[in-house]
């Protein structure tokens, strides 16, 4: 394992220090906690948004703290949900009295830890509510199981619900918008190879010279199945079709697209994939009003990418197009 790190135990702390040093105008750290909040938190009269999860997904989630997106981001150990006390501290710091929306990705750990924090906040009289993001189409839907994972589509929740809060909407309204985003967002991911969780020190899985993992999440876990590598166009087509077959799209529907790198995929390759995504959506007569390409929700140094598509109505489109000013999204 070769990584640019010092002691494995210090990774998260040192990373947070490095982020604050890089973006002193956008954010500050809650002293003694692994929590980043807006420089001007709490923002008076505004509903606050908090998100977070394990580390290793940078720029998620600290990179989206700033005007028009998140008020706070809580960082757990690498790929490990943060503990309730950390989340609770974040909630306390960002609440302006208008309430706090928790944006949780659908993992047992994230859900349980954030829920415990919400319970703690409620006990202190803070108004909190939550949404659970589950955009991953790779996992078949079932009421019996845990359900689907929350993956890169979470960025759309941060952006659009963030704009709603910035516009002055009440907590229940911001939650409604966030849930509309979740209901209309779908993501599919693939990978060319594993990543190495620093504390484990070993690759998360092994792939043959010609093998790829399809349908995988953002924690180095294996995907739904393996197949032989094919062309960028074939892979992308498979992913987009999986998404389009999961949620009905009418001709003329306006959409936004996120082609998200998992960490080690060159932007060159993401753009090559994006070319095909654009072509496929044009063929289906969908109208892409915004395209985002880059590393937004990563899985350490995993080579691979995901495609997210969100169906936009007038409200979501307007909120998506509002400016935001965060380290990783402007």
């Amino acid at each position, binding site marked *: 394992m070769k990584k640019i790190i010092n002691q494995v135990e210090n990774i998260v702390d040192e990373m947070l220090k490095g982020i604050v040093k890089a973006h002193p105008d956008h954010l500050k750290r809650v002293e003694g906690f692994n929590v980043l909040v807006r420089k001007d938190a709490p923002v008076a009269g505004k509903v606050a948004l908090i998100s977070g999860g394990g580390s290793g997904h940078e720029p998620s989630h600290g990179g989206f703290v700033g005007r028009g997106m998140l008020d706070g981001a809580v960082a757990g150990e690498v790929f490990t949900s943060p503990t309730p006390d950390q989340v609770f501290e974040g909630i306390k710091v960002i609440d302006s009295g208008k309430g706090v929306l928790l944006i949780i990705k659908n993992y047992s750990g994230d859900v349980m830890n954030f829920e415990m924090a919400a319970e703690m906040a409620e006990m202190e009289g803070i108004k909190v509510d939550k949404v659970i993001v589950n955009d991953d189409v790779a*996992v078949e839907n079932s009421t019996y199981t845990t359900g689907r994972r929350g993956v890169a589509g979470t960025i759309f929740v941060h952006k659009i619900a963030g704009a709603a809060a910035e516009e002055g909407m009440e907590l229940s309204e911001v939650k409604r918008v966030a849930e509309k985003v979740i209901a209309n967002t779908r993501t599919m991911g693939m990978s060319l190879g594993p990543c190495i969780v620093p504390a484990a020190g*070993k690759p998360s899985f092994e792939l043959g010279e010609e093998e790829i993992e399809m349908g995988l999440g953002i924690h180095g876990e294996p995907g739904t199945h393996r197949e032989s590598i094919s062309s960028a166009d074939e892979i992308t087509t498979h992913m987009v079709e999986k998404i389009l077959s999961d949620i009905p799209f009418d001709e003329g529907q306006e959409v936004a697209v996120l082609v998200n790198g998992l960490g080690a995929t060159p932007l060159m390759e993401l753009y090559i994939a994006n070319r095909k995504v654009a072509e496929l959506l044009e063929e289906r007569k969908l109208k892409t009003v915004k395209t985002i390409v880059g590393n937004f929700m990563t899985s350490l140094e995993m080579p691979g990418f995901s495609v997210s598509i969100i169906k936009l109505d007038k409200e979501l489109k307007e909120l998506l197009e509002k400016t935001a000013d965060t380290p990783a999204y402007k």
Partner: protein
Amino acid sequence: MLMNKEMFLKALELLSDRIIDSKELLNDLDTQIGDSDHGSNMTRGFTEAKKKIDMVKDKDFSTILKTIAMTLISTVGGASGPLYGTAFLKASMSVKDREVLVGEDFIKIHENVISGIKQRGHAERGHKTMLDAIIPAYEAFKESIEAGEDLKIASQKATDAAKEGMEYTKGIKAIKGRASFLGDRSIGHVDPGATSSFIIINAINDVIKEG
């Protein structure tokens, strides 16, 4: 036989050490069907818990267990943090005012731990989680105690059942937790949480055996 304070502290120390020693094993199991961190998570928690136990070792059973619970909740993270945290919290609530623990106490602990984990995680037996080790242990233990057997025997039977339950998770598909995203690919691998639960039950049994 019963468990006194000395045995109680010894059990807590041994189970912490065993978890810490199993870090790599648990990470490796979690690499197969999860995100490679169960060993790191548990080790972080129990390393901290050991320090905290030392600070409250003169207090009663309930306080000690509650200290462990709060430490796990604030250091482990992931799915296992809230679950083991809840488990120890429920155990703490089950032993209020007790100065030694007998068979019935352990039954009560088991029952509260199981209901706490179920409440927090919404999982059931057969979902390929820690419950698949804990519930069989409880059933075997209860049956043994109710049949009038000694704590030593009941504890051994519970441990054997936990082991069997842990091994059983290898053959089933995960319904809850991160491994559930793998679908059928989760079959063929032992669940890391069931393994850590077995390790804990086994450590307690080793102390009871000697006691």
